[in-house]
């Protein structure tokens, strides 16, 4: 039987990827951020998940305004790093887990989640930066990956509640998969940031800290945060945090925080990282 053993929440900032790719992680600007990634990488190395379900958003790379899926699950064998305008990141190809991905797609649709099933999807920094954050620069990524893309580019995003419920359904579906697999789920994006408009550069460390706290202390509060509160309090792109709620929904109620790191600024963003483990 497959099971979800842990969840990781992490920002997926493009320039963090660039800092890794260009060997700048020890520069004064980046060092405090990457120092905090160290223990998380060690955890990842020791945990050795078989599969990572990575909840991320596409940033006008695979999907365009032509067609905007709310939830898209990648069922392919392989996902190539996307060209976002600078040429693709020089990172390993992402290997999928089609058997488990199809099992999830089928279970979730019958469980009344209206998934879009995707067979071809280049993956952008939203997915590859979290892998770099947690795994550094291996020749091959250490686990299979199931990409789960959430629309955050077009208003309205799915509600935090809906994301949380989808997480719960994923946990159930994983547990009904007939193979011994240890699965980790990543919720990515955020934390507070606003990239656009005259209010660009907004960061709300209090909001972010309370969010990190309540991933274990008061999930109910987080699940009820309406879109406009994210937009107002966490910046227009801070709403990416709904993807962390999807991750949280896939864990047991009693999941424990085992690591946390928060740093401002990383580019224009409040950079957070948290590891939550299910009871064994």
């Amino acid at each position, binding site marked *: 039987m497959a099971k979800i053993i842990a969840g990781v929440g992490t920002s997926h900032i493009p320039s963090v990827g660039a800092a890794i790719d260009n060997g700048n992680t020890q520069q004064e600007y980046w060092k405090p951020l990457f120092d905090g990634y160290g223990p998380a990488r060690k955890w990842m190395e020791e945990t050795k998940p078989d599969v990572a379900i990575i909840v991320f958003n596409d940033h*006008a790379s695979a999907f365009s*305004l032509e067609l905007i899926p709310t939830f898209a699950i990648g069922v392919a064998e392989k996902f190539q790093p996307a060209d976002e305008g600078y040429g693709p990141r020089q990172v390993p190809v992402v290997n999928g887990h089609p058997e488990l991905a199809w099992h999830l797609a089928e279970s979730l649709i019958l469980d009344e989640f209206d998934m879009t099933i995707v067979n071809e999807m280049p993956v952008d920094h939203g997915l590859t930066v979290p892998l770099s954050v947690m795994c550094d620069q291996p020749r091959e990524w250490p686990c299979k990956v199931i990409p789960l893309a959430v629309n955050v580019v077009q208003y309205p995003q799915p509600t935090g509640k809906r994301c949380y419920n989808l997480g719960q359904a994923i946990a159930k579906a994983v547990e009904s998969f007939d193979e011994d697999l240890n699965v980790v789920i990543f919720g990515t994006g955020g934390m507070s940031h606003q990239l*656009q*408009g*005259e*209010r660009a550069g907004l960061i709300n460390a209090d909001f972010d800290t309370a969010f990190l706290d309540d991933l274990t202390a008061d999930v109910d509060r987080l699940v009820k945060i309406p879109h406009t509160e994210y937009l107002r309090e966490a910046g227009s792109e801070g709403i990416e945090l709904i993807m962390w709620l999807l991750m949280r929904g896939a864990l047991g109620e009693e999941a424990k925080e085992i690591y946390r790191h928060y740093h401002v600024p990383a580019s224009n963003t409040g950079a957070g990282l948290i590891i939550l483990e299910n009871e064994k």
Partner: protein
Amino acid sequence: MSKKDYDDIPGTYVFDGTQNRKGYHLNMFCMSLNKAENREQFAADPEGYLMTFPMTDEQRKAVLDRDWLGMLRLGGNIYYTFKIAIFDGMTMQDAGAAMSQVTVEDFKKMLLDGGRPVEGNRYKSEWEK
């Protein structure tokens, strides 16, 4: 379109259906810059390349002028318009400084100091004072 409860957030362009309809072709132009051959074409002949998209003249001008706020007002979505910034070799700080109309140095300093605070920046009414 009807009033939305996010309309009173200052300096923020929520990309909803209204904005999508306004900016569709502008954003699709931005998206096209994901492809190296399109970047080459745009570099070689910016005006000509823009004419291949059914955008408004105002939108084309905003692109050529790198009027980052203007693009947002004309329906641009930051995840898309940032493709032009990438094309120009700009960072997210450069774009943020341009949109909030300060120098890049000041913008970076604001971020190093913890970012733009939410206090005083929640409601349009706070900016009008």
